[in-house]
């Protein structure tokens, strides 16, 4: 007699539920020691639903299919010297920042989700987290493999993991992911799956990968889009977990709202680096940061929070400020990198006339008024040979760890934004009300921060001078500084002739 047919929902339920049991020889609270201390109340883990209902057999099948396609592209990219089809080698600054700043986040997410995949009490939630844990490992590994070819032909890509643990601007992503990982499991998933993946990840991957396509970087497009198919699952997990927490108990709302506020701001500050990638590092940008922000945050994020308002969840605190900052963010971040081009692991360059015209068009309220003059001034100084890099690394925000470069965009865009908190007799500086709130709520956590610039002053970073510190970072002299005149630039000219897409910087 043929077996009765099971529908997808039923089949999935049988293959993911009921294999776990209530332990009797060990207390369940000892088997799952971490899922209650945060105050989130779960009355029925079985209410957890995984909308994609992937079982392992289907997972292996589809993921192997994706991997085969991806590695076919990576192989042919290498065989055909695909790097010569880039719009310009200066574009690779974005890839250098990506592998040093983003790939290690994927690995962190892998370990963080493995922690949840073991420690959530609900079977369904555990499986969803495990699948994300292995996906994140995939992303780290495929990024390493894709970018490996660029590493063979360009500088600044050779030691991403050593650098992630040390470099002054890479503590921005490092502190972000370690903040989430050192929090409890529900806060971790709110941070990574919801605030980052659902609300903001489109800002990282979609415009950036579309930008890679726009700049002839077929390798990055391929891994990026291949990873995005997993991200869609992860985003959905993020939305489901938020709904799940809010549906389980009304007491969860204020906790979730506070995490949402905190991690939205944390993730948004991290993405400030992406804004510079998008507007300045990409030779040709398909979409400005401001446009991407309007589409993916204001419009989609707005729809999302409207949907969640039935649970009482509000838009994250300071979202209006983030939207106001969208007209300034990339210019401020790229400016600081240009001033510290002697201490970066990627090349910096000033925008060309053509790029500045594009920026004027995309940022009609701010670019010509505040930022074009400074880029033109630096270009003139470069020409006259009077340009000087900053002599020392700048002070970092105690929370987001970005240099204190942001301004009071709502009142006076030329006035630096600067906040101070006191904890146990010491003063701690933050860059914004968002970061100050985060500090003030958990000063005992953020006082621990390993701030790279403080560490240099304390003698923990290879020495007191910039060259000593750079050596400790494993930044080779040819990795940073101006793109024009660099080894990367010379190599590019050897292949492509002398038609430069960027200016001396």
């Amino acid at each position: 007699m043929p077996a009765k047919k099971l529908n997808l929902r039923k089949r999935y339920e049988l293959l993911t539920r009921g294999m776990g049991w209530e332990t009797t020889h060990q207390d369940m609270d000892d088997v799952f020691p971490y899922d209650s201390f945060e105050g989130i109340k779960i009355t029925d883990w079985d209410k957890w639903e995984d909308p994609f209902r992937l079982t392992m057999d289907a997972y292996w099948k589809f993921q192997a299919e994706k991997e085969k396609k991806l590695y076919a592209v990576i192989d042919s990219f290498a065989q055909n010297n695909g790097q010569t089809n880039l719009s310009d080698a200066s574009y690779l600054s974005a890839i250098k920042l990506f592998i040093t700043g983003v790939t290690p986040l994927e690995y962190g997410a892998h370990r963080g989700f493995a922690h949840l995949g073991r420690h959530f009490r609900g079977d369904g939630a555990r499986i969803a987290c495990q699948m994300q844990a292995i996906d994140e490992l995939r992303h780290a590994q495929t990024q390493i493999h894709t970018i490996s070819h660029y590493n063979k032909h360009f500088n600044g890509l050779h030691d991403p993991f050593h650098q992630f643990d040390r470099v002054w601007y890479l503590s921005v992503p490092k502190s972000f992911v370690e903040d989430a990982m050192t929090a409890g499991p529900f806060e971790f998933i709110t941070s990574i799956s919801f605030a980052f993946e659902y609300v903001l990840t489109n800002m990282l991957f979609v415009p950036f990968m579309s930008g890679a396509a726009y700049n002839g970087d077929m390798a990055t497009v391929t891994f990026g889009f291949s990873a995005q198919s997993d991200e869609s699952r992860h985003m959905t997990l993020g939305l489901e977990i938020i709904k799940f927490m809010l549906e389980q108990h009304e007491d969860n709302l204020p906790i979730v709202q506070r995490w949402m506020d905190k991690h939205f701001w944390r993730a948004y500050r991290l993405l400030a680096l992406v804004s510079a990638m998008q507007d300045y590092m990409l030779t040709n940008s398909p979409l400005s940061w401001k446009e991407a922000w309007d589409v993916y945050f204001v419009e989609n994020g707005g729809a999302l929070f409207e949907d969640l308002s039935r649970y009482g969840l509000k838009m994250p605190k300071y979202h209006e400020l983030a939207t106001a900052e969208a007209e300034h963010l990339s210019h401020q971040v790229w400016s600081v990198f240009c001033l510290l081009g002697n201490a970066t692991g990627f090349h910096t360059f000033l925008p060309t006339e053509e790029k500045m015209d594009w920026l004027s068009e995309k940022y009609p309220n701010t670019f010509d008024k505040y930022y074009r003059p400074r880029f033109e001034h630096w270009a003139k100084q470069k020409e006259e040979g009077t340009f000087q890099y900053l002599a020392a690394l700048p002070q970092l925000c105690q929370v987001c760890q970005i240099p204190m470069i942001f301004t009071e965009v709502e009142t006076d865009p030329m006035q630096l934004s600067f906040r101070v908190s006191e904890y146990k007799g010491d003063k701690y500086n933050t860059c914004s009300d968002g970061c100050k709130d985060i500090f003030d709520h958990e000063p005992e956590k953020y006082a621990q921060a390993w701030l790279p610039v403080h560490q240099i002053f304390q003698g923990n970073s290879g020495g007191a001078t910039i060259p000593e510190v750079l050596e400790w970072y494993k930044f080779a002299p040819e990795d940073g500084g101006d793109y024009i005149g660099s080894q990367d630039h010379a190599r590019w000219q050897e292949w492509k002739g002398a038609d430069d897409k960027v200016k001396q910087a």
Partner: protein
Amino acid sequence: MSIEISAKTIQPVRLSYGNLKERFGDKKPASRYQEAVYDVQPTTNFQYLPIWNTKHELYDKSKTAIVMEDWYSFADPRQYYYGTYTIARSKQQDVAEHNFSFVDKRDLFDSVPEEVKQAAREILVPLRHVEWAANMNNCQITDECYGSNFSTLAMFNAMDRLGMAQYVTRLGLLLDGNEETSLDAGKQAWMEAPEWQGLRHAIEDMFVLDDWFELMVAQNFVLDGLVFPLLYDRFEKKLTVEGGATIAMLTEFMDDWYKETVRWTNALAKVTAKESEANQELLSKWTNKWTDRLVGALEPVAAKAFGADGIEQLTKVKEELLARLTKSGVTGLKRS
């Protein structure tokens, strides 16, 4: 022609990432396995202590008593990174899928004697809980371990165990035409039948082990080293003789999986034992402790599965396991 020209003019300036150049030299490009698993995990300058475990840094070598000069001295002999891993498993699941649908379409279970089906329900179906526990334990290792080579290995293993728990579940379903009776009975046996309680107790104790390497030994060296040869190999052979070849078709995945897994467990035992006297002693201590405990726990299962022959089958399996680990350099094992 143009390809020749470009190949001549476009020469790489380096062959590998810096960490791999330091480890393996600069003569040839690093392999994809090496690129994927070496040194990816952060090692220093951690920002904050975990609020859920303030005794350890986020990644901390001291989460196990095992000490390694270099936690990357172990390499997976299968050289699995995500791509090679999923492609290998995808092929295996293709075969498994074919077998399941063949058994279903041709009603092959109709010709399996009822007592053989009953034996499968009683001995094999409860193993879905054992695999589920193995999934949790390997996820625990992924969480706690040190090094991206270990987290990669343990993560793949964890997902394999989920996959196998699901294959056992499908076997259970197919045994009863997709009614859930076998699964329910299996769960009840797991929770209440006397022959399973020793094993369940031991597994629950494994859930709360502090040292992830001890868990590695208990789960992946000892428990798997007993359960797979005993139940997926010897017991299946017995069922096949009794007319249950169909069942063996549906657990072929597990049989292949175990043969593959032994390769890395052997390699891991070897590298860890060779490192130091102290490691060697810990491995012996843990192996002895968990072999005693788990052989004891499996005795009633073996008796139920093989009848009078059960203890002898289990003893043989234990001998094979201890001989294998001894050969890998874990000395001081109690053979009796």
